[in-house]
């Protein structure tokens, strides 16, 4: 008799354990906090500043989601993940969303059971070398020792690139960006390879940034974007459209400064829908009707986020390039908000 009860309880807990990750949106609301998987520290994209506050391009997207879902951009807990631990952290439910310079690939979408919901940064893999090495092209790196972060797509691209060009290299596999920088600066490797944006961010933190150059070759496509668990479409939609809301805001000239004013004065129907002035789009996503407005007010539109963290004039100094809006010749394009 008692045993039956015990078995029943056992089966129930097992089922619960299995289904616990079903509704991330509800989980986040119930918790009152968004848990965001971020980088262990990549200046400009996701790193804690001197006083321990997380800041960066990816971090701001986490804050936007928190603002949209919970109405407060500060209700985010950042969990630093390495290239190796990030997907396991997401799959196991340790984080709600992973926004950590992660490349969208077929394997990750299918075999790893992840869903990349958007591309917030179009990137490509590059090489950084010291200027006095006298190298001006990645194809001159025959025989070089190359530092590479493990658990990344760049590892595979690197092998392919050197094979295609019929040159050899010695890989030094490191755990994260800071270790790679240490080895590179100590001269343990001739070149450091990762996403070009990551290289620019690394270089910005180096004491002698002007002595390092990023080689012109971009050897791969690295579409970086937010990732959620496969099979939770509702949550995926919230993350995706929060990001698109920031894009549409830039396209329509809505900024963190003028969002309240625009909400009352605008005659643009799409902006009205976006800011929750007309229609119930926010509610349809399961968040506050003015959730996207809160997000824009909290972190600004895509352009503002870009300019503040990694744009020209910052230490990272990345031109918009591919990440300009489609109206300005870039690839950033949001589906219509209707």
């Amino acid at each position, binding site marked *: 008799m008692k045993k039956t009860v015990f078995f029943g309880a056992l089966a129930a807990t*097992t*089922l619960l354990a299995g289904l616990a990750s079903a509704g991330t949106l509800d989980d986040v609301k119930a918790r009152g906090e968004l848990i965001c998987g971020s980088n262990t520290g990549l200046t400009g994209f996701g790193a804690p500043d001197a006083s321990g506050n997380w800041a960066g391009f990816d971090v701001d997207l986490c804050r936007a989601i928190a603002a949209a879902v919970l109405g407060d951009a500060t209700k985010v807990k950042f969990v630093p993940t390495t290239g*190796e631990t990030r997907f396991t952290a997401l799959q196991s439910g340790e984080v709600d969303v992973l926004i950590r310079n992660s490349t969208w690939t077929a394997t990750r979408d299918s075999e790893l059971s992840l869903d990349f919901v958007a591309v917030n940064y179009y990137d490509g893999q590059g090489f950084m070398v010291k200027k006095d090495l006298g190298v001006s092209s990645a194809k001159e790196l025959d025989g*070089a020792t190359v530092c590479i972060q*493990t*658990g990344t797509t760049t*590892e595979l691209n690197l092998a392919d690139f050197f094979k295609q060009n019929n040159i050899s290299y010695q890989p030094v*596999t490191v755990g994260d960006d800071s270790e790679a920088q240490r080895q590179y600066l*100590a001269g*343990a490797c001739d070149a450091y390879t990762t996403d070009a944006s990551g290289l620019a961010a690394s270089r910005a933190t180096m004491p002698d940034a002007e002595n390092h150059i990023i080689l012109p070759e971009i050897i791969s496509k690295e579409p970086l974007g937010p990732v959620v668990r496969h099979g939770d479409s509702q949550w995926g939609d919230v993350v995706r459209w929060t990001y698109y809301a920031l894009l549409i805001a830039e396209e329509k000239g809505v900024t963190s400064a003028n969002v309240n004013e625009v909400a009352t004065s605008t005659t643009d129907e799409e902006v009205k829908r976006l800011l929750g002035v007309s229609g119930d789009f926010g509610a349809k996503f399961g968040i506050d009707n003015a959730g996207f407005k809160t997000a824009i007010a909290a972190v600004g539109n895509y352009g503002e986020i870009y300019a503040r963290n990694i744009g020209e004039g910052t230490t990272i100094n990345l031109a918009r390039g591919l990440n300009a809006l489609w109206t300005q010749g870039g690839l950033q394009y949001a589906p219509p908000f209707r």
Partner: protein
Amino acid sequence: MAMATDVPKDSFRLSMLIYDTRYRSYTIQIVVLILFAMAVAWLLNNTVQNLAVRGKQFDYSFLWQRAGYDIGQQLIPYTNDSTHFRALLVGLLNTLVVAFWGCIFATILGVIVGVLRLSNNWLIGRLMTIYVEIFRNVPLLLWILLSYVILSETTPQPRDFRVTDEMAAAGEEPAASMMLFDTVAVTNRGTNIPAPLFDRGLGTLDLGFMTLNLTFWAILAVIAGSIWVNRRILASARAQQEATGDRPVTWWKSILVLFAPTILLLVALGFHLEIPELRGFNFAGGILVAHSFTALTIALSLYTAAFIAEIVRAGILAISRGQTEAAFALGLRPNRTMSLIILPQALRVIIPPLISQYLNLTKNTSLGIAVSYLDLRGTLGGISLNQTGRELECMLLMMLIYLSISLIISSLMNLYNKSVQLKAR
């Protein structure tokens, strides 16, 4: 009396399972066994359920897919076109080679330190105590990182070896130069040592699942043969000494037998050394021993040696003082006493705990990931796991492999232990 008639009846009642000491232990064991089985079943069930929820199958077929990544140190041929299984083998060999050298160095150093710690020389004894206490009480990971940082930050970059035309004209010396008659170069990436090459090698033998380097095995066979013949010579000399009292002179025979065949074979095969030379960014030619390997081996050896020293010391202290005194009374010098009387007896006490130290060292090689050493943990449990997303499969396989290595080591050591135990005749 009423009490006397109240004899326990033979019939079995359920309560006896708890109150009767004859059955109680069985009851407890059975209950614990059921609970244990249920816990295992729950774990398995939970795993299966969670895998199903994530839409993942338990599947090892990824081992035969193209790995796509490169490995710095490879003892068997491997390219990024090889399979994940091949990468696993490369990693496994990298693990084993560190464990092998680590065990050897740790044993040699541990025995020396353990003996010296008991030295009557106050300074040497204290120095050894300091060594043991420092290495035993600081985490191994820190020693690995420390030796790696020392190796990579204090050594010159490859470009420091370069002699440009201007420097040659001005008669300047490069910032760094090679060692040992210009054959060995220590850079901040690794140690470049000369590689043995053969003009007339024997080629390789393809066995399907692996290829054998015939040259290597031929040399090994000749060396093993030489050692065997030498032992026969020594044995016959001993027999003659016991029979006649005269020991024949054997040293020249030994030298001839030990070295001549190997040298002849090497000459026949056209043996020569390939000296590393600076070409482009790095030294090319020769063999590159990466600092990750060196640092890991050094740190593991020094750390484990501290433990082995304590084991050796305990083993020696376990031998009664009377043995030493008896040896001295026979006129044996302290060195001979230690090597002939004390250590052979101490071995019986030393070997069982020594086995655990070997196992520890082998398992601790997985810390190599901290210095980018691609061992089994780095290939199968690192990059392969990451690129394929098969955590459970990789982890289970890795645990199985480490378990097998440990069991093999401990059974070999147990065999050795049996051979040195006191023989009860």
